[in-house]
């Protein structure tokens, strides 16, 4: 899969070079923009069980820079009606193999209407479309109860991925409000399965860039589900079943008060074991270059089934805009697992209370 994605990245670069050839002959600097981001993150817990990721790739008591990542983005304006953008992404978890996280073309159908096609970042969740860009968020990593790490063996799996398909993006603004509707369809490639016949919509209402309300609903069909070692028989139960999710989000940034709140539910047919309810709230107060935050996350999955999970995490975080375009982050979390294993790997036996701390550096360029 990595080879395929790397090949895609190379193809994209070659395509961009070809695409930009006429532009390079004229005023290339007006048509092509290159930008990037990078984050170096370290996490460690006081428990040997891997948290929010596969064994040896999540966070455990050995400590890890697993969240370290870098991205490079190319935006090419072909003409006034069409532009192309691609984001190449590389992370420690993927052995720094460069992959095309997303790449799509945008056709302007009108002043307030765009048609996008290609591989697009999934629009579910307030921050999913730029989740890898640590500089753009207050956290070291977005709350795992909604934004489960890619490849994590457990969790709601509501966001993160990019889908292949098309999106119709419409906007309308009034004096103080800006509305946006994103209707999308396509397919998702997950670790060990696909979601086909993906259809969904995201609606956003933004009040004066101070408050944002967002809702996303989508559904799709699980296909090609590979056997799960820790859950025999599960693949057969999931194959061909309807996978759907609903996410609500609210964000505010007003007078130095910062709030993020999201709630999500994901279901697969009537499999109670696959039904998850998650929510989190982050509150922060900006003091000059510092943004201290407190985040509470709640995760419940499989209520009423043989495998029931219930976990909550409280995190104290600090973002420090140290110098221009560089933010330092520190955080300490307490993960309380009340039932099952939560976001620890399936069939693991984590302590009821696990502490985790982390520090990192984010930049954009």
């Amino acid at each position, binding site marked *: 899969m990595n080879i395929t994605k790397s090949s895609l990245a190379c193809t994209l670069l070659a395509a961009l070079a070809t695409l930009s050839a006429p532009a390079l002959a004229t005023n290339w600097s007006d048509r092509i923009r290159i930008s990037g981001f990078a984050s170096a993150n370290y996490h460690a817990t006081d428990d040997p069980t891997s948290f929010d990721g596969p064994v040896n790739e999540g966070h455990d008591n050995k400590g890890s820079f697993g969240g370290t990542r870098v991205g490079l983005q190319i935006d090419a304006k072909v003409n006034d009606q069409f*532009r192309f953008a691609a984001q190449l992404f590389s992370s420690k978890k993927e052995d720094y193999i460069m992959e095309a996280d997303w790449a799509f073309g945008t056709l302007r159908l009108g002043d307030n209407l765009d048609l996008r096609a290609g591989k697009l970042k999934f629009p579910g969740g307030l921050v999913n479309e*730029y989740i890898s860009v640590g500089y753009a968020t207050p956290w070291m990593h977005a709350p795992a109860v909604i934004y489960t790490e890619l490849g994590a063996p457990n969790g709601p799996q509501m966001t993160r991925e990019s889908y292949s398909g098309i999106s119709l993006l419409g906007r309308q603004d009034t004096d103080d409000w800006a509305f946006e509707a994103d209707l999308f369809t396509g397919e998702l490639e997950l670790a060990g399965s696909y979601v086909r016949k993906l259809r969904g919509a995201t609606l956003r209402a933004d009040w004066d860039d101070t408050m944002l309300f967002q809702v996303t609903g989508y559904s799709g069909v699980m296909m090609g589900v590979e056997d799960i070692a820790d859950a025999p028989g599960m693949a057969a139960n999931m194959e061909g079943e309807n996978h759907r999710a609903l996410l609500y989000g609210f964000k505010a940034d007003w007078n130095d008060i910062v709030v993020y709140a999201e709630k999500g539910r994901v279901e697969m047919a009537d499999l109670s074991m696959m039904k998850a309810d998650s929510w989190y709230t982050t509150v922060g107060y900006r003091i000059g270059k510092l943004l201290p935050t407190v985040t509470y996350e709640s995760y419940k999955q499989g209520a009423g089934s043989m495998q029931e999970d219930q976990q909550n995490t409280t995190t104290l975080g600090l973002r420090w805009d140290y110098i*221009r375009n560089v933010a330092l982050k520190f955080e300490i979390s307490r993960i309380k697992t009340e039932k099952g294993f939560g976001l620890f790997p399936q069939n693991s036996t984590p302590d009821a209370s696990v502490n985790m701390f982390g520090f990192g550096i984010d930049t954009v360029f």
Partner: protein
Amino acid sequence: MTPKMHNTLWPGAVLSVSLLLASGATLAEIAIIANPVAGAGELDKKTAKKLFLGKISTIPGMDKVTLVGQADDSPTKAEFAKKVTKKKLNQFKAYWSKMVFSGKAVPPKEFANDSELKAFVARTPNAVGYVDASVVDDSVKVLLNVP
């Protein structure tokens, strides 16, 4: 230090403070500018904010806008971010990071300082940008002054 030296330094100190104040007063006023041939008329502050936050891509009288800005180390950019978008420079940068890295907007082309940006706007019919109001001359058209 002798009293005589005090007397010598005093006028200079007054002049320096005056210049600093004058400089501060100049920085405090931002002008949103366009090419003189642009069809846009006077711009209101809310529309200017939406335009420079990438929420709209056109303005009344201009159905095509080439948005331009200044480099992060330009003092005009920090002043503009504060006065027009109500954001500190780091917040403004984080905001544009969201827009750019989600693929929803292309970052405005950036210039090192007021004079370079003004020169570009003066020769580009669709360009709209911001400068310290003190550098405005007949080569550009002012759409909005923000004191």
